[in-house]
């Protein structure tokens, strides 16, 4: 293991796998964490149920506890679409195909995180070019993901023109990715110590997306109607929150900065934060990060040219990796024995984001719900997965 050590907690808390507590730099054995107290429904409240099958992008059972208008408590049931992935005793290469499909929309982050953990276990130090290539992939994914989040927020506000313009850009981004890796969601693009993602002159193309986006962003951020729906909506006070939600609350939580898995220190990376804490803050952070990602891609594009084929040999060991997926920290751990996966751990960002969302939703009213939900960029698919 190159980046993680078993030690006293150091750095911020990332999350827990089945048997470990993960911090920014260390991991410990799982402490007996107190179960969160269950909410007792007040007499006047009734449960407004939303989902699982409500035509949403994804299925989840959302229960809003409300005495009318105001939301006092939210439960987000992700178990309803629980997928059980049997990885134990399987070939790491086969396991990768499943990992990619935990959350297809963030396929690159998932694949790269898992591969990095495997490489960590197998003592492979990937070539810098390959590392940069991976960064470019994740940043492309981030641009698309942020476009999606902002598009969905604009959709909640009923802003038809920006919704369609953002959808156009998102599709453009998907095509850029599809052209270079052969697959629009990075499936099969990454493998252990290798990548077939072609980064040639990608900077220009993503740059033009970012430029077009900037125009829409200016329009949205000048629209009082739009801003009013976001401001003071879903104020995030969760000190453990991650990703854009944390950065929008002024916290410098970013795996690009405090994880050694990918060499972001070689890029012109600048962390974007905002002090608004609300959905508007998250909107701003997401929007500004598109520009940042585009700059990273431009910066690295030339440095990962002429990617070769790298060999590797299977080796037993333990490895861990953490990358900044678009919604926040994504953690993977693996243990290889006899060329097979013995155990694996996985912390998707959406679990923490759902918690932050639930806390921030209290005291808001129904019409705030969509904006707030979308602003966290939650993917239920990754939260409802169990690795075995």
């Amino acid at each position, binding site marked *: 293991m190159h980046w993680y050590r078993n030690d006293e907690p150091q750095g911020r808390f990332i999350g827990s796998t089945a048997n470990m507590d993960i911090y920014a730099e260390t991991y410990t054995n799982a402490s007996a964490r107190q179960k969160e107290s269950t909410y007792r429904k007040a007499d006047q409240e009734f449960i407004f149920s939303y989902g699982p099958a409500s*035509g949403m992008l994804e*299925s989840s059972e959302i229960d809003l506890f409300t005495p009318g208008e105001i939301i006092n408590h939210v439960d987000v049931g992700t178990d309803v679409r629980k997928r059980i992935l049997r990885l134990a005793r399987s070939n790491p290469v086969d396991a990768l195909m499943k990992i990619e*499909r935990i959350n297809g929309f963030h396929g690159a982050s998932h694949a790269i995180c898992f591969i990095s953990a495997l490489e960590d276990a197998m003592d492979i130090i990937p070539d810098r070019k390959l590392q940069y290539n991976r960064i470019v992939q994740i940043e492309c994914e981030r641009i698309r993901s942020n476009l999606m989040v902002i598009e969905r927020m604009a959709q909640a506000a009923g802003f038809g023109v920006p919704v369609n313009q953002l959808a*156009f850009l998102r599709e453009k981004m998907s*095509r850029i990715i*599809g*052209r270079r890796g052969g697959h629009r969601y990075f499936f099969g693009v990454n493998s252990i110590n290798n990548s077939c993602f072609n980064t040639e002159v990608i900077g220009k193309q993503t740059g033009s997306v970012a430029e077009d986006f900037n125009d829409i962003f*200016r329009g949205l951020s000048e629209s009082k109607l739009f801003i009013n729906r976001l401001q003071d909506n879903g104020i995030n006070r969760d000190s453990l929150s991650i990703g854009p939600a944390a950065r929008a609350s002024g916290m410098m939580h970013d795996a690009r900065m405090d994880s050694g898995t990918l060499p972001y220190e070689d890029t012109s990376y600048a962390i974007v934060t905002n002090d608004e804490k609300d959905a508007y803050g998250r909107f701003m952070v997401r929007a500004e990060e598109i520009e940042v990602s585009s700059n990273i891609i431009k910066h690295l594009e030339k440095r990962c040219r002429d990617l070769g084929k790298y060999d590797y040999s299977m080796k037993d060991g333990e490895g861990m990796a953490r990358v900044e997926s678009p919604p926040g920290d994504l953690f993977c751990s693996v243990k290889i024995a006899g060329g097979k996966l013995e155990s694996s751990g996985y912390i998707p960002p959406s679990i923490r984001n759902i918690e932050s969302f639930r806390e921030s939703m209290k005291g808001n009213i129904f019409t705030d719900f969509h904006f707030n939900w979308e602003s966290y960029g939650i993917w239920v698919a990754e939260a409802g997965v169990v690795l075995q």
Partner: protein
Amino acid sequence: MIKGLWFLRGLRKGIVTEKFPEVKPGEVALWSTALKGDGNPQCPVEAIVDGKWIFDRCIFCRKCLPSYAPNGNFNIFKVRKKEPSFNKSFHLFPFDSGACGACNAELHNIASPQYDMTRFGIFFTNTPRHADAIVIMGVWTQGMKKALDLALDAMPGPKLVIALGACAATGGIMGKGALAEEKYDVVIGGCPPNPYTILSALEKARGD
């Protein structure tokens, strides 16, 4: 000045919608098109049996390279039942049984301006009561079984049951299919299916 006027901003962009299906699509990611090749390479989902490629099992994982390779034909779907009465308006109820999000995103994509499903009279609805077709995505999951049964019951006839992607149709690598394969009227292959594939399949399903 133009910044605040979304209508004008929209006009300024002009028409970006493609002329598909009259004009061939400009760009299709290769690994969402039909595979062609010889031999019986090893396949994790048994999508190649006796030298024959089975489209609704394939998850496009590239393990069969170099024996098989994509040929660019995105029409990888099967229509068992056509329903011409949906010719003018076709309302889809998206149903996520246990998908990874890629199918969801691609289905969502057919609404983006490049494809613009509304020019075909295709719309999304968020209740099965108003739906002409249910689009099932993802593998079978215990929790969604009840909801799926209820949704199929709640739909008025005539109706179409559409499988979107390998997971829903056969389970792919992630589990088993959301419904038994014979229960689907339309099966759209891909992992995830390309938006062009989805549009072509939907057009075909209503008899075009």
